[in-house]
């Protein structure tokens, strides 16, 4: 039991050390811009086209999905997708450009 408690603490601390959950899957910006249509694209279609990525799920039923696109010089731009409670893309936004997250 003590070992179990210790492992749980370690697991939480491991999350602390790395800070954030793994960053978004990398997809070229043009593919995202062409393939994600607010009001039409569904979650299943996102996953099928671009793969599972970093997602934050809220109690309201909304979800925020993060993809990253190469922006040159080893940098990446963010592509953030807001999925509504019906499972359809509600909004998207691009940027900022930064070094990839761990």
């Amino acid at each position, binding site marked *: *039991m*003590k070992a179990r408690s210790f492992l749980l603490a370690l697991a939480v*601390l491991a999350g*602390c050390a790395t*800070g954030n959950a793994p960053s978004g899957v990398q997809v070229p910006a043009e593919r995202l811009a062409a393939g994600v249509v607010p009001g039409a694209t569904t979650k299943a279609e996102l996953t099928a086209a671009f793969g599972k990525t970093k997602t*934050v799920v*809220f*109690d309201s039923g909304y979800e925020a999905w993060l993809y990253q696109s190469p922006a040159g010089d080893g940098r990446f731009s963010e592509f953030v997708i807001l999925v509504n409670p019906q499972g359809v893309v509600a909004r998207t936004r691009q940027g900022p450009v930064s070094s990839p997250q761990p």
Partner: protein
Amino acid sequence: MGPPVCYRLRCLPLALAAAMLAPGAFAQDSPVSTVQVTSTRDPVDKSYRKMIKGMERFEREHAYAPQAGLRFQLLPRTPDVTMDGITLRVAGDTLSVKMPVAPDNSFVLPRNEQALREDAAVLANRKTTSMTWRAAIVTPGLPPGTRRLGDLRLECRVGVEAGLVSNSSPLFDWLSNALTSADEVCTSPNGNYLFFAERPLFAVRLRSGERSETLPFHFLYAGGLPREELPFCDCQVLLDRTYYVPLWDKAWPDDTLVEFDYMTETAEARP
């Protein structure tokens, strides 16, 4: 602006709390001495002395927000808490003073020498861990959907000094305090003092003169905190309203506007 490596300071007490809460966490292989705890302060209750220290810090560092006043605000932490009809009082050994609470659940803490002498608590009529607290320092006249960075810098200093963040079990408050001072939290990229917007956020942008920058994704939603860790965070029920700002980055002056792009154009009722 470097990425905030989240929870470096704060997760230690969270991890210990997780270990303590695990089944069998208290099982021992060998006999140990027993410590009798006669009372623990409910995390919804705050130390009056600490809150007064926060108010004193506000006066000392008012230059961050020279046009703003100081209020404290109660916020929901668990989904089941009702935020209507909250009552507050300052309670010491012999003292009990009711405090008026505004419709937005903000209040002003009066200075009371007897309450200081009696090391009083500020008590809310709500269950343990059901709410959290923040300082509310708002410069009047800002455009709708914006905050001012200097106000947030001062909110952080006052909030940490006053012990308002209610992340972990009260058993670990002492440890949390040992690891985090206002100077550490509010001037370090690793400080990660959480703010809450009025409504769920889609993006946060900083604007100062001609310079404008959208904050990276990991500045929102408590850095994408895993759901299993949410119960240990005082952002539990407000995750979609949660954001960090680069308090430590002096390249952004105090008059920088923090602009919110909300998820929806109008507020939606919570399910």
